[in-house]
């Protein structure tokens, strides 16, 4: 028994190592003195300093963050509406169809989503003159299309776990439907909205394929810059940048986890 336990830990360690050692190496090498990414020559933070002066990279990062935040906000609104329709409105006509359409972006190959959106934007520009050119707007719209699906999944599971009688009790106590939604439903599904937002944010932040299709000149997102510069040869600056992204994402995931953990017992209580 002790033996098999020891083996279990070994496999766990191997699994975790497989997942996280590369990330860890990347972070360690961001503090490397040398210009060569694979040779360690001493500790230094100079690449972080250089990163701060790399306008191209910083602009791309800022654009990506703006796109990610806008995308996440719209995705949460649309995803929540969709989840509400699915959970709260019973078997409306075309429910199955709606469900399929909503889930499609989850399984659709990104190349196809990207290409079809590009064709759509080009056609629309020719027909109605909007969106004019490709850039922030088109990338954001493209990201919203798939982020919404993810948010809907998260919010939907939370909504369907929620005791329906809570809303009925509020209505019974004199609250009109909108009031019920604002003071009972929303606070109770807030953790799901937040994790949905963070999920949409990260999905958008690291999307490369779809962005590449619908981006225009002057609207290069961070993953696009990273990808193209890696092809020229990896600079330790990229390591530094990646470390910062890892840090931000870790903190966000941690915060989301803590929030949902704190909400969980109260949600179960009823």
């Amino acid at each position, binding site marked *: 028994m002790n033996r098999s336990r020891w083996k279990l830990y070994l496999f766990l360690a191997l699994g975790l190592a497989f997942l996280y050692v590369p990330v860890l190496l990347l972070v360690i090498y961001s503090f490397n003195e040398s210009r060569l990414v694979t040779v360690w020559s001493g500790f230094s933070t100079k690449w972080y300093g250089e990163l701060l002066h790399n306008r191209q990279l910083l602009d791309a990062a800022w654009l990506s963050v703006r796109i990610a935040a806008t995308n996440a906000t719209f995705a949460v609104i649309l995803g929540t509406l969709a989840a509400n329709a699915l959970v709260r409105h019973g078997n409306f006509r075309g429910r199955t169809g709606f469900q399929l359409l909503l889930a499609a972006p989850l399984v659709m190959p990104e190349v196809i989503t990207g290409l079809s959106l590009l064709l759509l934007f080009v056609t629309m520009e020719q027909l109605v003159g909007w969106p004019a050119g490709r850039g922030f707007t088109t990338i954001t719209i493209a990201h919203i299309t798939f982020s919404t699906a993810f948010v809907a999944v998260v919010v939907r599971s939370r909504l369907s776990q929620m005791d329906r009688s809570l809303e009925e009790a509020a*209505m*019974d106590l004199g609250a009109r439907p909108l009031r019920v939604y604002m003071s009972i439903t929303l606070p109770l599904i807030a953790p799901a909205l937040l994790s949905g937002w963070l999920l949409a944010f990260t999905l958008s932040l690291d999307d490369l394929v779809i962005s590449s299709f619908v981006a225009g000149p002057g609207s290069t997102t961070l993953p696009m810059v990273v990808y193209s510069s890696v092809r020229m040869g990896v600079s330790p600056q990229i390591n530094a940048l990646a470390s910062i992204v890892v840090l931000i994402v870790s903190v966000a995931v941690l915060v989301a986890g803590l929030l949902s953990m704190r909400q969980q017992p109260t949600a179960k209580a009823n």
Partner: protein
Amino acid sequence: MTNPAERRKLEPWQDPKAAPYVRIDHVTKKFGDVYAVDDVSLDIFQGEFFSLLGSSGCGKSTLLRMLAGLERPSAGRIYIDGADVTDIPAYSRPVNMMFQSYALFPHMTVEQNVEFGLKQDRMPRKERAERVGEMLALLQISELRRRKPDQLSGGQRQRVALARTLAKHPKLLLLDEPLGALDKRLRESAQFELVNLQERIGITFVTVTHDQEEAMTMSTRIAVMNAGQILQVDTPTAIYEYPEYRFVADFIGLVNLFDGRVMETQDDQVLIESSLGRRLHMRDLHPHAIGTPVTVAIRPEKLQICSTYQENGTNQVKGVVEDIAYLGDVSIYRVRVSPEMLVEMTLTNVHPRTEQALTWGQEVAMEWSPTSGVVLTE
């Protein structure tokens, strides 16, 4: 004895001039093709503690939800205090409901939960605080006011839920399985508390329950429901002693049912040839014609040990004790009287169990009086 005037006050349903407080008028509710509630009419009077009793899926909860306004009847009208409320949404009805799960808002404190309904009415802050204090005091939960629902025990949650529903001084309080989520010990004390509370505040209560014992102890009247219909509406005593349907007799407590056919009638006395192979002599409140197939229902505690057994005696039967269920105060004896028939007899355990006269495998003769059961046709 109480005089007639007083009796009418205590039992308004006996008074032909009393106006019902809640009137359910030919109400039907369909979900798709299924009739959850099927053409139900019912009058409930002010100050009653009325119970809808039935097994799950009989439509009792749907009926309650229609009173609350959470479901809309497919047909029929509902009146409360003289006003037609059928088309009034739940949030505008002078009715509050306590949910089976209590449905306390998990993100609000006890105080905020109780205050929620008052806020919706835009009651001034000072008045609101007063009313909340009153309600918390009424249910003796003032010291819990700052707690969240997940920090409360089952019994405390029930009190908070009650306080919240009573806070708006509803005309009618609906309770869906009010004691269902409590454990057995707590449930018994809560039954009495609920009845006392209701008598103190004088609000009309309508509860839904599947627990016949609960309905018997608490209610002024009980409506027994089955398959979306109300079978019988009566006081707990009448429901137990004079059921009108086999289903009602069978649903409430234990009962022995003997099938038979009417042979002779005289006034309210009836002679029945039964499947036991002997004659039964019963009093029949609704005399049936000769030849009618009937069922005689006798409660196990109405049976007695017979000392004058005769092979052809009426209201007598003999068999062998097959099972004994010892419940402490009483024991239920299952006596095999024929290969396909068991008769249940309850005897009070006057003596300690070890000294009891009846034991397994023993032959026993039983009898009952003509007034101790009812004659049913359906």
